[in-house]
C-alpha cells in the first residue's frame, strides 16, 4: 500500500538515480526500498524505461538536407538584393523617399517578425510544482531572438532594441 513515505521516496527517484542526493536522504530511500516492494518495482521499471528511451532509434537528416538549405538561403539573398535595388530607385525621388522608406521598414518588420512569437518552451507552468515562479514569461534567450536586425535607417527602433537586449542580457546574468 502506498503511504506518505512512498510518495516522498518516489519524488527522489531521479536524484537517487543521478546519485545527487544527500547521504541522509539517500539512506532514507535505501531503507524504504528495502522494505517496500511496490516502490522497488516502480524504481526498477523506471530504470527499464530510461534504458528504452536511450535506445530509441536515432533519426537524422537526409543526405540532401544541407544542399536544400543552402539553395533556400541563396534564393533569400537574391530576393534581398532585388529589394535593395527597388529601394534605391525610390531614394532618387526626394519626395517619395521618406514614404517609401517608411513603408519598406514597416514591411521589413512584418517580414522579419515571425520570430517574435518565440517564447520559452517551458512558459507553460505546471500547477503544484512548488517553486516561486518568475512573473515574466519572457525567456532571455527568446528575447535575444526577438532583437532582430532592423533597418538601419529606422534608428530609433534600432536603438530601443539594442537597449532592450542589453537589459535582457543583464537579467540573464543576474538570474543565473
Amino acid at each position, binding site marked *: 500500500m502506498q503511504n506518505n513515505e512512498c510518495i516522498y521516496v*518516489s*519524488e*527522489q*527517484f*531521479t*536524484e537517487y538515480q543521478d546519485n545527487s542526493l544527500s547521504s541522509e536522504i539517500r539512506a532514507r530511500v535505501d531503507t524504504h526500498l528495502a522494505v517496500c516492494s511496490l516502490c522497488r518495482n*516502480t524504481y526498477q*521499471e*523506471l530504470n527499464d*524505461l*530510461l534504458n*528504452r*528511451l*536511450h*535506445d*530509441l*532509434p*536515432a*533519426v*537524422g*537528416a*537526409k543526405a540532401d*538536407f*544541407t544542399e*536544400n*538549405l*543552402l539553395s*533556400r*538561403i541563396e534564393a*533569400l539573398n537574391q530576393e534581398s538584393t532585388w529589394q535593395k535595388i527597388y529601394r534605391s530607385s525610390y531614394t532618387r525621388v526626394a519626395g517619395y523617399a521618406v514614404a517609401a522608406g517608411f513603408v519598406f521598414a514597416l514591411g521589413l518588420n512584418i517580414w*522579419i517578425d515571425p*520570430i517574435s*512569437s*518565440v*517564447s*520559452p*518552451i*517551458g*512558459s*507553460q*507552468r*505546471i500547477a503544484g*510544482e512548488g*517553486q516561486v*515562479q518568475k512573473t515574466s514569461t519572457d*525567456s*532571455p*534567450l*527568446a528575447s*535575444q*531572438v*526577438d*532583437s*532582430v*536586425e532592423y533597418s538601419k535607417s529606422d534608428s530609433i527602433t534600432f536603438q530601443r532594441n539594442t537597449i532592450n*537586449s542589453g537589459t535582457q*542580457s543583464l537579467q*540573464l*546574468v543576474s538570474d*543565473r
Partner: protein
Amino acid sequence: MNEIVRKTDEQLIAEFQGGDELAFVELVDRYKDRLINFVYRFLNDMTDAEDLVQETFLKVYKKKHAYREIAKFSTWIYTIAGNLARSELRKRKRRKTYTMSSLSFEDNEFTPVDPDMDTEGVVFNSYAGEEIMKAIKQLPEPFKTIIILRDIQELSYEDISTILDIPMGTVKSRVNRARLKLQETLSYLRE
C-alpha cells in the same frame, strides 16, 4: 582533422557573424541530426521535422546577430527549434488534423544516422520504440518536452533550465514527475 573541427560552436557563430559562411555550414553539419531527432519526437513526422529544422537554420542565418555570447549556442538553437515545434503542434491542434490515426508512424521514413546500421536492427528498434513514442505523445506538453530534452536528447539539467527558462530545481522535479507519468501511461497502454 582539419582546423574547423576543433572550433567551439561559439567560435563558429562568431565567425559567421563576422561574415564567414563556411562557419554556418559547419554549424548546420553539427546540429542537423540532433535537431531533427529532437523535433521528430514532437511531430512524429520526418518530413515535417526536416522542414522545421530547415526553418530553424534559416532563422539562425537571418538573425545571426541576435545571438549573444552570454549564452551557449546549443541552448540558443534548441530554444528556436523547440519553440517552432511547439507552435507547429498548436497549429495542428487548431487545424484538428492531429488525429489519433497519426499515432501510428509506420508510414514515416526513418533515416538512420549511421548509414552502416543493420537494416533489420532498425526495423526491430523502431517497432519496439513505437509503444514508447505513443506514450510520449500522450503526455501533457511540459512533460513531453522535458522527457525529450532530458531522456532522449540527454541534455544537462543546466542547459534545460536555460532553454525552458525555469529554475534547475523545477527541471529536476519535472523530470521526476514526467518519468513517473510516462511509466504510468505505458502500463495503461499495455492493459
